[in-house]
Structure formats: C-alpha cells, structure tokens
C-alpha cells in the first residue's frame, strides 16, 4: 500500500485516499480526548471548557493555578511563605500529595509481589512437564477477566472478616492479584522463544540450577519481566474499584481522589493531575518500547 502501482484505476485512487481519511479520523478519535486535557489544565477559570481568551491565545487566560492547587489543597497554611515549612506542610497535609504517596507505595509493593510470584509461575507454566497446565493457567489469568466489581466485592466481604479491609496490606494484596495476569502473559511470551538447549549447555558445563537461572535464563527473560512489572504497576496505579471497596480515607490513591473529584466538585485540578498522568504514561510507553526492542535483539542472537 506504500506506493500505488501505475495500473491503479480512478476508483481505486479515490478509495485509497478515502480509506486513509477514515483511518485518520479514527486515529483522531483515539488520541484527541487525551490531548484535549492538556491545554484545558492550564485554564485560568474554574471550568472544564475552552474560554474565549484561551482560543485567542491570550496569555492572561492561561495559568498554573491548578497545578499549584495539587500542592495546596488541604494544607494547613497554604498562604505561608515558600520554604521548608511550606514544603513539609504540603508533603504531610495536601490531599493530592497524600494520594500520590499512597499510589506509589501501594503500586510498588503490589508490583514487587506480583512480579516475583508471576515470574516464578510463568517459568513453571512454560515447562511442558507441568501437570494440568491449561487449567491452572486459566485460573491464574482469570483476575483479568472476572468483572472488577465482583472481585472487589468478594475481597471486601472476605477481607472484612479477617480484618484486612481498610488496611494497606489488603489493598496491596488486591492490586497484586490484579497485576499477576499481565506478568504471566508477558513473561510467558518471552519464554516461548527461549532455546532450551542453552539450559542444557549450561548444565553440561557444570552450572547448578541456581547459576543457570541467574546467568543464562534471567538475562534473556528480564525484558519480559520488566515489562510485566510495568503492566502490573500501571494496573495498580490506575485501579479504583478495589480501592473504593477496600480502602479507608487513609489509603486514598490518585484514581480514588480523581473519582471523588469527578463525582463531587469538578475542578480543573483533576485535569492538571490527568496531564501529569498522561506524561507518566508516555514515559512508561517509551520504556516499554525500548525494552521490546532490546528483547527482540537478544532473541535474535539466541535463535541464530
């Protein structure tokens, strides 16, 4: 489709460009909603829409006030002069700062848990000797498929009875459960191309099981492990249903804070947070792409 051959008829010409135009619109549909958030977050007015000033690129109509609000909202003395005391106040009291801290803490703990367990399980599952492979795999992937409300309600019901609801541990466990399917899928995908004779070669040269794993297997599957971990992290970072059911106000995360922001007082602070999250997802996407290329390069070497 790159270059139209000389025998193309007029009808095909027209269709070729109409098709591209249609695809262009679909791409716009995909990407515009995300881009529209960026300028709106700099709105000086407390509205969710473009003002006249914004459209005429009046610099008065733009401001960083909603980004400041992320730091200020909930502070003890928001108007105090900037300094260490002000920063400490923000760190300890600002609602959004607390949500950001919680999100990172819960996300990192859940990621470590699900990546460690998920990687081990994926290695086991990719062995052909594994008994009941298909059944166990489908159980381990099911957290991705079961509706979140049912998962969250079940956990809320069960964790309440063992005093785990409204604790950090409860939320972390819930998020780890939701993250493991992604780890299993990505790690299994890297193991599909894994050359088993490498393990045998390493063993025949006298390496034990642990050394083989550390020196031969691990370097090859590490891109899959990291991208699985990133998936698990973003799943936790973006998760709100389990938090709604399981967390107390103390464990509010960013999505939970956004949720109440959308439901209660719609303020452009949410758009400012959203912009920051879009930037974060761009960074994650870049890291993932680099990892994918590295993995392809590594696998290219092993298969030849």
């Amino acid at each position, binding site marked *: 489709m790159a270059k139209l051959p000389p025998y193309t008829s007029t009808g095909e010409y027209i269709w070729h460009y109409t098709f591209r135009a249609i695809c262009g619109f679909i791409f716009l549909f995909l990407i515009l909603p995300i881009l529209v958030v960026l300028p709106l977050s700099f709105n000086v007015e407390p509205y969710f829409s*473009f003002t006249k000033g914004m459209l005429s690129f009046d610099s008065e109509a733009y401001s960083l006030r909603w980004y400041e609000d992320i730091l200020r909202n909930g502070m003890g003395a928001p108007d105090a002069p900037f300094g260490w005391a002000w920063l400490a106040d923000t760190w300890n009291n600002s609602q959004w700062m607390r949500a950001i801290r919680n999100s990172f803490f819960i996300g990192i703990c859940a990621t470590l848990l699900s990546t460690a367990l998920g990687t081990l399980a994926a290695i*086991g599952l990719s062995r052909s000797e*594994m008994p009941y492979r298909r059944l166990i795999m489908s159980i381990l992937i099911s957290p991705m498929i079961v*509706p979140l409300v049912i998962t969250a309600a079940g956990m809320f019901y069960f964790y309440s009875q063992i005093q785990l609801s409204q604790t950090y541990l409860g939320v972390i466990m819930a998020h780890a459960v939701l993250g493991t399917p992604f780890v299993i899928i990505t790690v299994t995908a890297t193991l599909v191309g894994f050359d088993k004779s490498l393990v045998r070669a390493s063993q025949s040269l006298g390496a034990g099981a642990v050394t083989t794993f550390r020196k031969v297997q691990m370097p090859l599957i590490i891109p899959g492990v990291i991208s699985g971990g990133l998936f698990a992290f973003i799943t936790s970072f973006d998760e709100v249903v389990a938090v709604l059911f399981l967390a107390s106000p103390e464990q509010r995360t960013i999505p939970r804070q956004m949720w109440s922001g959308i439901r209660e007082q719609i303020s452009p602070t949410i758009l400012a947070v959203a912009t920051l999250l879009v930037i974060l997802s761009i960074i994650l996407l870049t890291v993932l792409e680099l990892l994918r290329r590295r993995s392809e390069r590594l696998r290219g070497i092993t298969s030849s």
Partner: protein
Amino acid sequence: MADRQTVPPEPITAADGTPLKKKLAQALFRSRVRAASLVLPLFAFIMASFVIPIIALMWQGVYNDTFSSYTPNLTEQLKVWDGINDPDEVMYAALVADLKTASADRTIGRIATRVNQEFPGTRSLFTRTARKAKNLKPPFKDSVIKASKKWDNIEVWRAMKITSQDLTPGFYATALDGRYTVDQGFISQDENRQIYVKLFWRTMMISATVMGLCLLLGYPVAYLLATLPLRTSNLLMIMVLLPFWTSLLVRTTAWIAILQSQGVINDLMVYVGITADDARFSLIYNMTGTIIAMTHILLPFMILPLYSVMKTIPPSYMRAARSLGATPTTAFIKVYMPQTIPGIGAGGLLVFILAIGYYITPALVGGQDGQLISNMIAYHMQKSLNWSLAAALGGILLAGVLLLYWAYDRVVGIDNMKLG
C-alpha cells in the same frame, strides 16, 4: 538360536543398576514436581486472596442465616408450619419471645431488614412490635394482632417462613425478577418491580453495541497498520498504545470535558451553527455517553488482536486473487476477510467480556439510563447492604463471563493472549 529365545531379555539398567524405565519415571516425576513447585506460590496466593473470597461471596447468594440465628424459637416453629393454616398461639408466643430478646440485644434491625428484603414494607412492623414486646400478655395471638393488625396477614408469616430457611433460592429468584414463595414456588415479580432482567438485557445490548463499534472502527485501523511499512506503522501504533496506557479515569475525565453541554463538541456545534445555543445536545450522563466513552476505552483491545492476526496474512494472497480476475472488493471479501476471522473472534470476545463487567465509566458518565449491572451490584454492596442479592446478581454475571472466557480459551487459547 533356540536357547537364545529361552533366555529372558535383560532389562536395560541405569548406571546404579535400577531399571531404566523406573529411573525415567522418577526423573519425570521429579521434574513435574519442580515445575509445580514454581507455580505453587502464586497459585496459593491467587486461591487465598481471589478465588476463595469470590466463592465466599457467591455462597452468600444462596445462604443467609440472619433470620434464623436471631430468632431461634420462631424458626423452630416456622419449620413445622405448613404455610397454609393460620399461625397458632405457639407460633405467636415464639414470635414474642424472639422479639423480646432481639429488642434487648438490638438485633431487631437486622431481622426487620432481612424480612423486608423478602416482603417490602414490613420493616416498621417488626421494629414497632419489638418495642412493645415487653408489655404483651398472653394469649399472644390476640395481643400481637392488637398491637398491629398486619400480623393477621398470612403473607407476613409466609415471608418469615421463607427467610427462616438458611439455604434459599430466593435471592436468585429476585435477581431474575421473580419471587420464591411458600405456597406457589417460583412466581414472577410485580410488573413495576421488574428491573433486573431489563438491566441484564441492557448490559448485553450496550456491550454488543460497543463491541460492534469497536470492530467497525478497529478493523480499518488494524488493516492500515498491518499493510503499512513497519516504520510508519510503528509510529502510528503509538496512537493506539498511548490511550491503552493512559489512566481510565483520565480518559473518562477527558470525555466529560468533551461531551458535556458546555464542552468542546457542543461549543463547536454552536460555533458552526449546527445547533442553537439553548438547544445543545445532551451527549453525556446518559447511554450515549457510556457507549462513546466505553468504545474509546476498549478500542485498543480490538485493534491489537486484529493487528497481530492481519500481520501474518501474506499480501501475495490478495495479489494472486487480483491476478485471477477478482475485483478488489471480491478479493477482499473472499480472500482477506476469512483469514481475519480469528482476530475478529479474539478481539470481539475480549471487548465483550470487558464491557459486560464495566463499572467505572458507566458510574461516572452513565447518568440514569447508562448504568450497567455492575453498578447495581455495587449499589447493593455499598448502599442498600443487601449483600445476598448483590452476590446473586454477581453470580449470574460471573457465570456469563466465565462462559465467554471458556469460549475465548477455545477460540483463541489463553496462551496466545498478547499485550501491546
């Protein structure tokens, strides 16, 4: 030759003298145990923190012992009562005795709520009578009916008989717009109380619509990505992956900013002159908003499987069809499309499975008529606190989803699930 045949064949042995067959079985067993022990930690974790909680919740959908545990005497009597004759003095005495203790222990609220789920409008009957229970004198039948005439209604007693059974199909009956009664078995609910079947139906319709729209929008894009040279398609792929990686709440917020009555689309429409300033379209907080936002959110789940299937179709097939005299349309429909069916199946099923259990987006942009069954489950879990009904509704939804999951495994195979 002859004596060679009489010598039994020597079994092949390993270095330490054990038969090779046995040795091999041992080795195989050991490697199986090793593989299983790698999976075991995660399996135990998922079982303990995911599967068992869900089973425990589902059990609530058929089992509720609130009534029987707080009214032991009455439950005993209701068990032997046939449900047809008028309740006798012994049953009234048991009722008064249980109401007395319930009033003292402050458990009457739970009893009243439980019966109210079965027979709406009886909550105050229980709480009021319980308050008076101390002063009621025998014969109890007369004094209780004097306290409130409603006790004379046999339906109240029938509802109590139903609630006194711990193991009950009543919640599933309610979830399917029916009622389970003592005398008639399963009957259908009054017309104006039938909401759940309609809601299930609406959930299916919205999910199917979203799936259809995703296919409609995803197919051309996947085709373009699969046929463009790798460099360009990788660049365009970012446009698909960025939404995929962006927070769900960010995307929902963005759609609120775009679709609301003072939002981007409406402003644009007014500016261009398609609609008047005072007749803006209501695009959000209704079913339209839910469908648009969900289509946007689930579209990457359709594009990615379609793309990975289309990528494997050699372009020479189409050229061969053309050279044999097929028009571009015929070649596409007869040669290209049948090969993309696995991708359509994979993407369609995935989108449908994810859509049918959606909660966040409908809750935020759905308004009244854009709510799905998940929102009703959350309502019964958090607001009305009728956990058993939530469990029954969830059980039906879960059964549907697991059936689709099974189909997905059959059609696609979970091993072939790909991300990004």
